[in-house]
Structure formats: structure tokens, C-alpha cells
């Protein structure tokens, strides 16, 4: 068996085609689940494997599925979150481009386990071309009886619909994603009720990230113990680490959960180019609080990064070199969150906008001595005061930059 068979991003020629996926042993796990396992056992196996959500929050996937009520006469839905919008993140794109069938197989297994017959894949609008390849893969799977009616000759059916977004970061938040599939503005819903109970079209709904679901065939095919062996005892499997910014070899690196951040940057991505030193590293997409160069000896897993005051998030690592003023980083961050706030909750709408205005003014050389404290106060006012996690996602990285690079920013303010 080649190593490609257990990789989320295989390297074989034409890896996205069904015939290539079948050569790698594709759809054997779905066949096993659908023809020989009880649905509850599928969920149990995924729970045992310690598969945590790869979208950002790291919630255990099997546990999430177990919250969806069993049985019942009404419909239930599976929604795949392919609204990859967290800046610095390009992993789900790679799965959709190189390995769409593994996502489809993971969806089939998840749907079988939870008792779902209809699934939506929400793909961000900017990935329109990529969605074309996904649709081809779905058609291939339907032709072979891996999707559609009576899968593997059983009584289990699954219909899959690709739904394209239209440009809105917030739709990656799971309840905003549901609103968007229902044809409305992507404004998050108040929780509870959680989507597992009241979700898409008011029906029980499981929502999972692309990378999360692409791991499921590996767990069912090779077992929870094998999967745990590829990662950490409570955080199984590999992770797709994306590295961009000031490194010699930007790219996507599939490595065991818990790999050292410094190893990923220095060994895999080749470290910073000649003459550049690292000033800061954002470890998990733009919303993850930045780390200083002396904080890079941390393992890349959900718990370790939380202890380090940051988060693993989407595992999109952005390396910032010493030639870049931190104010430039802050400007991009402030503009992004002000642009992407959906406008529903006042603290986020007003807070992101005022932070943006203040940072812009500093950039124009009109900084005031009170500005940095003002930004910290505005960020504090957003934390924990919004319907969705975006308030925190916008506040925490701004606070980290202002706190950790205060000296440099003070000089920019005084300029």
C-alpha cells in the first residue's frame, strides 16, 4: 500500500479522478460502513479516534454527530463547510482539487452514521472553478453507485448538492452558513438551539469542515487506534499545515498533529529567506493571536496552542519577517474584520469599524498617545458580547499585536 493511500493530499497523477482514488483503496471504508456496520458504531469509532474539527474550533466530530437526534420521521441534513475564508488558509482548496472523492466518501460515512439522506457542500464563491471539479467527482461517484439511491446495493441513499457562496467571510460560521444555504444574508443565528437539533430548514443538521470529513474514511478503514497513532492521544490524525509569508518554501505540509511549530517553519518550509529574521508568527489563520519569535517552541495541536494564548484554528501559519512594520499587519487585520463584520451585533459592527479608523489614522501619521489603549478597550468591548465567535476572532489577534509589539507601535503612533 502506497503512502498516498493514507494522505489527504496524494501526489499520484490525476489524483482527483475516481479511478485514481479506487487505486488508492477508495470507497472501501464507505462500503464497510454501509454494508457491515451499525450507524451507532460508526459514530463510536470516530469518537474513539479523537477526530477534532479542522475548521477552527476543534470540536470533536463524533461527539457533534451524537447530538443529532436519532430516528424521527423528518429530514436531517449534512452540511459540508467548504467556505474556506480564514486568511492564510488554503488546505480545503487542496483537498477539493486533489482528493475530492475522499471528501465524498467521508460524507457518505457520516451521513450513514447520523441517518442523513441529503447533503449540501457550501463552497466559497471564489472557488467557483474548483467547485466544477467537485461536481464532476460527484457525478462519477453517482455513476458508480457510491452516491445516490441504494448505495452499495443497500437501502441507504444520499443526494449531494453543491451550493456556491458569493463572497462573505462570515458564512464560514456554521449558522451563517445555514442562513446562506437558505438564500439569505449570512447573519449568524442565536444559539441554542444548536444546528444538531434545529439547523438547515429547521431540521437536525450536522456541519463539518472539508478536512474533518476527508479524515473519516481513514478512521473507518483503518480503525481509531491507527488514527490516534498518527497524532496525539486526544487529538488524532495528521493536520494540513499551510505556511505562507516569509519562508523559502511556502506550501501545504501534512504532518502529525502535535508537530513543533518551529520544525514546520524551519525544516519543512525552509525558514525565512536570506537576510530576513522572523518578527512574528500567526499559527492558525489570521484570527489566531500572533506569537513572538521566542514563543515558537510549541506543538501544533488544539490544547498546546490554547495554553500558549493562541489557537490552532485552521492551521494556516503566516510568518512575518522583520522588514515588515507591525502597523502594516495591524492595518490589514483591522480592515479585514471591519469589512467582514456582518453588522448584526453592535459590539462587532462598531468595534471593528472604530479599530479600523483608529489604525488608519495612525498609519496616516495622525496617531494620538491614547490610541493603543483605545484599541485595546474597543477589542475588550467586543469579546464575548456577540452572537457568533467573530467578535472574539476580531478582538484577540488585534490585542495580541498591540500587547506584544507595543514598543514598535508606540513609535508609529508618535511619528
Amino acid at each position, binding site marked *: 500500500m502506497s503512502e498516498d493511500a493514507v494522505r489527504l493530499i496524494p501526489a499520484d497523477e490525476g489524483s482527483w479522478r475516481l479511478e485514481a482514488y479506487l487505486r488508492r483503496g477508495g470507497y472501501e471504508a464507505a462500503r464497510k460502513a454501509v454494508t457491515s456496520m451499525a450507524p451507532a458504531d460508526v459514530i463510536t469509532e470516530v469518537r474513539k479516534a479523537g477526530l477534532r474539527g479542522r475548521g477552527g474550533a476543534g470540536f470533536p466530530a463524533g461527539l457533534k454527530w451524537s447530538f443529532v437526534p436519532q430516528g424521527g420521521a423528518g429530514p436531517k441534513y449534512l452540511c459540508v463547510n467548504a467556505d474556506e475564508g480564514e*486568511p492564510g488558509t488554503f488546505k480545503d482548496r487542496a483537498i477539493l482539487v486533489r482528493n475530492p472523492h475522499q471528501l465524498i466518501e467521508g460524507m457518505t460515512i457520516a451521513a450513514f452514521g447520523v441517518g442523513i439522506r441529503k447533503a449540501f457542500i457550501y463552497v466559497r464563491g*471564489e472557488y467557483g472553478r474548483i467547485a466544477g471539479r467537485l461536481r464532476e467527482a460527484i457525478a462519477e461517484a453517482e455513476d458508480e453507485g457510491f452516491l445516490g439511491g441504494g448505495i452499495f446495493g443497500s437501502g441507504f441513499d444520499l*443526494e449531494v448538492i453543491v451550493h*456556491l457562496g*458569493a*463572497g*462573505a467571510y462570515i458564512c464560514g460560521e456554521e449558522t451563517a452558513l445555514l442562513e446562506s444555504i437558505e438564500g439569505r444574508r449570512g447573519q449568524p443565528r442565536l444559539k441554542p438551539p444548536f444546528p444538531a437539533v434545529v439547523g438547515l430548514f429547521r431540521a437536525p443538521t450536522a456541519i463539518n469542515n472539508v478536512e474533518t470529513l476527508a479524515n473519516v474514511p481513514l478512521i473507518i478503514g483503518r480503525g481509531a487506534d491507527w488514527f490516534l497513532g498518527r497524532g496525539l492521544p486526544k487529538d488524532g490524525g495528521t493536520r494540513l499545515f499551510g505556511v505562507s*509569508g516569509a519562508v523559502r518554501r*511556502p506550501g501545504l505540509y501534512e504532518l502529525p498533529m502535535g508537530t513543533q511549530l518551529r520544525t514546520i517553519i524551519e525544516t519543512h518550509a525552509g525558514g525565512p529567506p536570506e537576510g530576513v529574521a522572523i518578527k512574528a508568527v500567526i499559527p492558525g489563520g489570521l484570527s489566531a493571536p500572533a506569537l513572538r519569535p521566542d514563543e515558537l517552541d510549541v506543538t501544533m495541536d488544539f490544547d498546546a496552542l490554547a495554553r500558549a494564548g493562541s489557537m490552532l484554528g485552521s492551521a494556516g501559519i503566516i510568518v512575518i519577517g522583520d522588514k515588515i512594520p507591525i502597523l502594516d499587519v495591524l492595518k*490589514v487585520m483591522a480592515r479585514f474584520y471591519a469589512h467582514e463584520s456582518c453588522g448584526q451585533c453592535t459590539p462587532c459592527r462598531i468595534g471593528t469599524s472604530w479599530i479600523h479608523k483608529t489604525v488608519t489614522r495612525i498609519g496616516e501619521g495622525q496617531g494620538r498617545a491614547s490610541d493603543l489603549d483605545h484599541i485595546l478597550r474597543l477589542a475588550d468591548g467586543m469579546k464575548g458580547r456577540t452572537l457568533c465567535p467573530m467578535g472574539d476572532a476580531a478582538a484577540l489577534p488585534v490585542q495580541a499585536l498591540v500587547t506584544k509589539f507595543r514598543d514598535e507601535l508606540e513609535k508609529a503612533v508618535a511619528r
Partner: protein
Amino acid sequence: MSCSPSAAAVKKIDGIIAPYPEKSAALLPVLRVVQDELGCVPPEAETWVAAKLGIQPIRIREVLSFYTMFRRRPAGKTIIQVCRNLSCTLAGAEDIIGFLKERLHVGPDGTTPDGRITLVTVECLGHCDHSPCLQIDGIDHGPVTRDGVAALLEELRAHE
């Protein structure tokens, strides 16, 4: 410009609506078909889509004004979207944007006077390992340089 979709587009729209449990849920993909055909979603098309999906016209306007990829006014024949989020900024996105502004004589969200090209700056395109990156009519390019961008503009002109 006609403001109702063609027969072919209507057929496509009917196909899109069919699998949704509620017709109105097909709003985003339907608007995309309309925009692909008409170049934007003008007010008359809003009315048409509302009737087609059985919802109030205000629902269409709400959605159009929320999502950045929808346009209520015509844009250029070609749309160049340049990413300016962090990874691309670190790799020189502002220089690329400046170069495009200079070459096309337009600001961000501006269209060249001949109606050929609209320049848009966007947040992360999810192509950060190829930064600085941009999309021309949905096709990704990156990492791009000034010379590379100049070549892409030449190619666009040659294809006309």
C-alpha cells in the same frame, strides 16, 4: 441589454431550484446564473427572480447588498480580483495593486473607460502559498510579479 434571463438560463435555473427543499434557498446560485448572463443583477432582474422563487423583492436586494461577488451595476468584460490580505501583503500585493492601477488608469472598483476591465481588491482568495495572487475571471494566478501581470494584461488584449 435585456433584463430577463434567456430560455437557456431559465432552464438552468429550473435545474438549480429542483433539489432544494424550499425554492427560496436557491437564491444565491440563481443570482449567479442571472449575473453571469447579464453582467450584473439589475432591478428588473430582482423582480424576475423574486417572482420565480416566490419571495418578496426586498429579499433579493438584501442578499445582493450583502455578498461582495454580486453586482447591481455592470462591470467590465473582464474582472481582475487582487488579494490584499496578509500573506499577499507580505509578498508585495500593494505594489501589484499600484502597478495595475497605473497600467489600467483606474482605482480599485473602477472600470477602464473602454469597459474592458474592472479592477477589484479582495480579501483572502485562499491561495496564500502562491502569494501575491489574483484571479482573472475566476482563474487563479500567482505568485505574480509586475512583469507577470503585464504579460497577463497583454494576453487579455490578444484574446479580444
